[in-house]
């Protein structure tokens, strides 16, 4: 690991402190990395849920995160914060269902190309609609605990309590999803659908509803993540696109369809980005995710944790 025992007062005799960093700095970077990593992981899991059930990559995934934040901010003027968040998540889930019903449901064996283009179009529409409704303003939810400058000390670093909310809620979501897919009957039906659609139909599972449900779930977790991160990162109508690209990178990195892999990959990307600040000019931080994406696609498209067969594209 990093050499982290050098106290701050001794490391500035002309040497750059970048190579040997203090423990405090290390923890600071680590938390920044984990915060972002968990958000990317949630977006990637959203991709995976829809992909597993339908074989579609939903380019509009990032917009669900944006919508969660935006809607909850608007609702905040009428109701207390927890209710606003719950309602915002609910409304976004309805939007997810509507998207599936209006645009996807009645298509019959569309090609991959067509699906990609449709979801891109949906993402643009949602973004422009958000621009129309909420304007170009940057907004945010208030911090759940304290205000903009309260922090808690963790292992020497100072982090905002909101960061703990983000990380905590992402963990909870992953756990709940895990339980859902393993133990509930609906969850098992969805897994059956993703394993083999025809067989699932033969077993009497209503695959069309499973598809809608997958959109609803993805929208829900995206929206919740959006609400949690809004105080830290602000919400703006075009927040979604950048997130979708990073989320997709993480999904591929972890193996498309593999949600456990997505979590690991998300944390990995978040941490790499955070620590990159110490070696690469900050201006290139965004290019790191793209470079990783391209490298993975060229070298190992089934991701770090995926298997070659799973990487073969599914039929819709």
């Amino acid at each position: 690991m990093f050499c982290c025992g050098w106290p701050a007062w001794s490391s500035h005799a002309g040497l750059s402190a970048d190579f040997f960093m203090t423990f405090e700095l290390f923890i600071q970077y680590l938390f920044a990395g984990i915060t972002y990593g968990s958000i990317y992981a949630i977006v990637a899991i959203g991709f995976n849920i829809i992909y597993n059930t339908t074989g579609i990559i939903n380019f509009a995934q990032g917009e669900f995160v944006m919508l969660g934040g935006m809607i909850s901010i608007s609702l905040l003027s009428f109701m207390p914060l927890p209710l606003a968040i719950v309602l915002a998540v609910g409304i976004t889930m309805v939007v997810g269902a509507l998207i599936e019903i209006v645009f996807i449901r009645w298509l019959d064996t569309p090609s991959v190309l067509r699906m990609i283009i449709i979801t891109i179009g949906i993402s643009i529409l949602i973004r422009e609609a958000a621009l129309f409704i909420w304007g170009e303003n940057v907004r945010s939810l208030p911090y759940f605990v304290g205000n903009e400058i309260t922090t808690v000390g963790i292992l020497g670093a100072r982090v905002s309590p909101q960061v703990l909310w983000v990380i905590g809620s992402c963990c909870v979501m992953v756990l709940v999803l895990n339980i859902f897919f393993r133990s509930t009957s609906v969850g098992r039906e969805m897994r059956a659908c993703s394993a083999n659609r025809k067989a699932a139909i033969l077993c009497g599972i209503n695959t069309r509803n499973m598809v809608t449900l997958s959109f609803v779930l993805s929208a829900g977790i995206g929206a919740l993540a959006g609400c949690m991160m809004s105080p830290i990162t602000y919400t703006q109508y075009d927040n979604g696109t950048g997130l979708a690209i990073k989320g997709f990178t993480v999904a591929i990195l972890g193996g498309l369809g593999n949600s456990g892999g997505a979590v690991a990959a998300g944390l990995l990307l978040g941490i790499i980005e955070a620590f990159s600040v110490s070696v690469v000019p900050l201006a290139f931080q965004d290019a790191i995710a793209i470079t990783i994406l391209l490298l993975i696609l060229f070298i190992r498209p089934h991701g770090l944790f995926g298997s070659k067969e799973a990487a073969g594209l599914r039929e819709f």
Partner: protein
Amino acid sequence: MMKKLLAPLILVAFLVGIQLLCRWTDTLYYLTQMTMAGYYSLLVIGLCLVMGYAGQISLGHAGFFAIGGYLSAALTTRNLLPFQKTFLVKALSSAGLLISGQDIYGEKLLVVTPWAACIAAVLIAATIAFLIGIPVLKLKGHYLAMATLGFGIIIYRVVLASSYFGGADGISAVPSFKLLPGLTVNGSTSDRVQNYYIAWTLVLFGMFLLRNLINSRVGRALRAIHGSEKAAESIGVDIARYKLYSFVLSAVFAAVAGVFLTHYNGSIGPSEASVMKSIRYVAIVAVGGMSHIWGALFMSVILNFLSLRGVFGSYDDAVFGVILILIMLFAPNGILRIGLGAKLKSFFQPKGE
């Protein structure tokens, strides 16, 4: 023979007709947007080859346009005087590739001639397309889409971050491009008609080239690949080579469009490399009919013309988003292939016949 020439002849007649009509009604200013639309169309028809005939989606083609445009802009505006003692600059100078000029402050400049810059830009774009194409075209479906998207974003980030390419402000004061004595690509009003014809001659040339390609062995191979890669492979078609070939060719088209439009506008900005632009080009190819270059050309002219005139107002991007969705939902083979005639017929025929 005549039938083959029919479509291009109609196009030529149409173009000349527009120009004469504009002159007659004293509305020559429409030629400005027609010229710009022409250059964008050059990119679109190249993209149509890749997407429609070779069946490879590319969400990053604006990147090639930007490579062409930015390289020619940078080479023709960035001063080499500080480096005039170096070997490279001396070699270029003796090859006659450099020219003296003045920058906006009146200071002396040593820059590359537009012709040399153009050739360099297009060659570099082709090389990048070749190098990128080899790994990217091995991917399929979503992976291919994301790889091309990633490529486009990297180009955008590079031009945005580097001061050689002007950063967020882009490059301006790009000189005019003297093609031949008497023919210059520039933005001045007096040369409007000339520039209109230059742009559209390029497009015609491109259409001609593509049409011949499509009707040749290469085109048939491409269509075989589009139909089914496995089947094509089994009959001995070298898939990788043909896909790469069409990809590089489309990159060349895009780069040439970029070079010429940059000289025409006199400037270029990072917005030309943005993801929205790439998506816009894909939308136009989709609505024109994936494998229908005349359809793509037609829709490109209309949509770009309207967009450049501000007809879509602030909802420019939304319009292209809506077009994408509508076309993909209702007319995936393009608007000209809806088979409207057949559908109407079946609608009116009594059922149960």
